[in-house]
């Protein structure tokens, strides 16, 4: 695996005391890293650091060896083509007033992806096909899409600019089981084919175990455990991990 996104000792503490780190991790195409932990364990802060929205107070987050830039300057735009994001509630992250085509074309223009309107059009069509959406979806607006279609459209937006690593922040937490499985399979295929690397942030251990090669367990901002997913799950060495695993085994209702 060629490592593209890398954190070394990255840490950030909020004024209130909550925070995360120091965290070490490395992700590249073909690999999926799961970040699990209960609510408030620092997952969201870690995501913000990985994406360059929050600058680590200590340590560093690097993309292709250089610190992830902030803002929307030229350097940042180049990085944001390849390092993309699928937010919590991906369907809600689509502007309800814009067509799917516009939603997908905008990042191509804003991030300065090579090519004119015609090339961009081709990229949009490819991205939609890659996530299994019919071409006619491009001219519809999010309120007219089904939940599954909207999820796929948000994923297509993350892929359209030529993503190499996708950071996904609990993107299936609001889905029913069937839809969740579809999205997971889709992502698993993309990772397995070596097209993207994935940072998968979740409190849903089931989904994470299916998808990820490596696991990083956060507990109250600190890294509780880190290693290959199988090992961490079957021989949990930290109380926080054990609690998560046991919750999965004893909880008769599947995670939402």
């Amino acid at each position, binding site marked *: 695996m060629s490592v593209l996104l890398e954190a070394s000792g990255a840490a950030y503490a909020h004024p209130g005391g909550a925070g995360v780190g120091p965290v070490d991790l490395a992700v590249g195409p073909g690999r999926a890293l799961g970040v699990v932990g209960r609510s408030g364990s620092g997952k969201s802060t870690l995501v913000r650091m990985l994406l360059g929205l929050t600058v680590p107070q200590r340590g560093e987050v690097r993309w292709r060896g250089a610190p992830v830039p902030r803002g*929307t300057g030229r350097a940042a735009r180049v990085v944001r083509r390849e390092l993309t994001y699928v937010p919590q509630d991906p369907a809600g992250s689509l502007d309800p007033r814009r067509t799917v085509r516009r939603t997908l074309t905008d*990042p191509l223009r804003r991030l300065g992806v090579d090519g004119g309107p015609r090339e961009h059009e081709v990229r949009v069509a490819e991205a939609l096909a890659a996530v299994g959406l019919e071409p006619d979806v491009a001219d519809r607006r999010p309120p007219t899409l089904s939940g599954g279609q909207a999820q796929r459209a948000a994923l297509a*937006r993350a892929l359209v600019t030529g993503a190499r690593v996708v950071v996904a922040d609990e993107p299936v937490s609001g889905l029913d089981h069937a839809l969740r499985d579809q999205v997971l399979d889709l992502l698993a295929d993309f990772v397995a084919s070596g097209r993207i690397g994935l940072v998968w942030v979740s409190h849903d251990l089931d989904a994470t175990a299916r998808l990820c090669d490596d696991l990083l367990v956060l507990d109250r901002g600190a890294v509780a455990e880190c290693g290959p997913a199988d090992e961490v799950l079957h021989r949990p060495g930290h109380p926080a991990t054990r609690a998560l695993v046991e919750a999965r085994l004893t909880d008769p209702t599947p995670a939402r």
Partner: protein
Amino acid sequence: MRVPVAALSRVVAVLGVTAVVALLPWLSGRDAAYTVLRARYADREATDAALAAVRAELGLDRGPLVIAGDWLGGVGRGDLGTSWISDRPVADALAGAVGVSLTLTLAALGVALVVASLVVAPSVRAALAGRPRVGSGVVATAVISLPEFLLATLLLLVGAVWLGWFPPYGWTGLVHLPLPALALGLPAGGLLGRLVATAVTAAATEPWVRTWLLAGHGSAATGLALLRRALPSVAGQVGLVVVGLTGGAVAVEEVFAIPGLGRLTLGAASSQDLPVLQAGLLALMLLAAGLGGVVALLRRALLGGRAAPALPPALPAAGTRRRDLAVAVGAAALLALVVVAGLLRDPFASAHPRLAAPSWTLPFGADASRRDLLARVGHGAVSTLGTALLVVAVCTVVALLVGCLPRLAAGPVEVGNALPPVVVGLVLAALLGASVPAAALAVGLVSWAPLAAHTSALLEEARRAPHVEVLPLLGVGRARLLLTHLLPSVVVPVVRHAALRVPGVALALAALGFLGLGARPPSPEWGLLLAEGAAYVERAPWTVLAPGGALVLAAVVAVTSTSLAPRRSPAAPRRTVPAPAGEPDVRV
């Protein structure tokens, strides 16, 4: 360290208002010297030398810093200066006036509490019966929402002229108190009642209410708890209504010729007696601050210093909506009919018998100058509503710009929200002379504030929408974010809110015209028409009823249209910040 922009902005805003008051004599420039010359030495000619002498005598030639410093220092020592007109110490006149105004305000607060309780009671009862619904009938609401100057005139007509139960003018005993207290207290009570009733209805949808009732807590205990739950969240608006009493008092005191603070200040503004005006404004603002402080203390007592927990969104008034619409459309249509009929006639020709009674050929009668009242009311609508439209349009643009800088604008927005238009009108009339532009500027200076607050609330909400939060990662810079993603979703609801404020602004303009702070004779402005008619109210009540009726219709349109207020826009399904409905801007 984070700069406390909002706090600084508040300090600057308060200092700014104080500075304007302290600098009034300097700001008024040459005009004031001319007025004083006319008042004191009517025989002298207004030569440059004479004016310069007056300026030197008044100390107007000493530069702004000295003038402001002197005045502020004097206030610190309890010396408010000497009246330019009467040459007597300002403090003496002020002391008596403040006493009168305090009595009137307290009586009005009493009336307001009774009225508010009457409005809130049905909502509490409905909530306890498990069917929370929004307040009382729209017609009743509109009637108690008439602006003070209009209500005062109508009460004078009914209570003093027709029934003869109360003396029409003066302030010599308790018998003088009921009419002004009603005129001031009814609108405030109606507004307070509507605010609280809406909050109670919203609170009643919370699950604990049902639990309490099922668990056998008495209605009284649950009702009290509902009020306790609802009141803190509207305390800010309640404070504004109570502070607004100071503005309303100016009009009421003028109508009933009560020698209070408002009338003193109004007289000083008309005659450009700036030391009296300064002291009056200071006392009005201190009174307003005191009233606001009492409300803030009550809120603290209710909450113990915590922030008010948010209420669930208010229920749409489903049952009354259709009737509201009918009343609003009906009133607007009737008003339109009067305006069109009036526009076809000549408002300036003195062609009819003096004070002619209404007849088929002269439906509204004639005024003391033998002019057709229907024509004057019709033409007055155009100037009053036209000016209101212009004011609202400018305010909307300003609000959209200022709303983008919520922390920087915090102070001016709060001051603008709290200042009654009449008080601003007093200052501007003293500075610029009474005119339509001065009145429009005065109303505009306070009308942008609620729109700006609405804009920044909507922007704040739009920023938190998931589809906006993700944009920086998609390469959308800050300027583009604001211009192409945030503003478009904000403009439509703010413009709709602004449109609903047009009738309210028109009433505020009419109030200034009524007080002689706006349009000048012979222009047919509604407030001015009402003031002109008031002198003949005993002999020819139609001179008051014609413009008064038009103003009542405008008030009905104002109230009903705001209660129709926020409809969900289909393009923005997530919108949850409504226009502050139920607060027609008819306080003056």
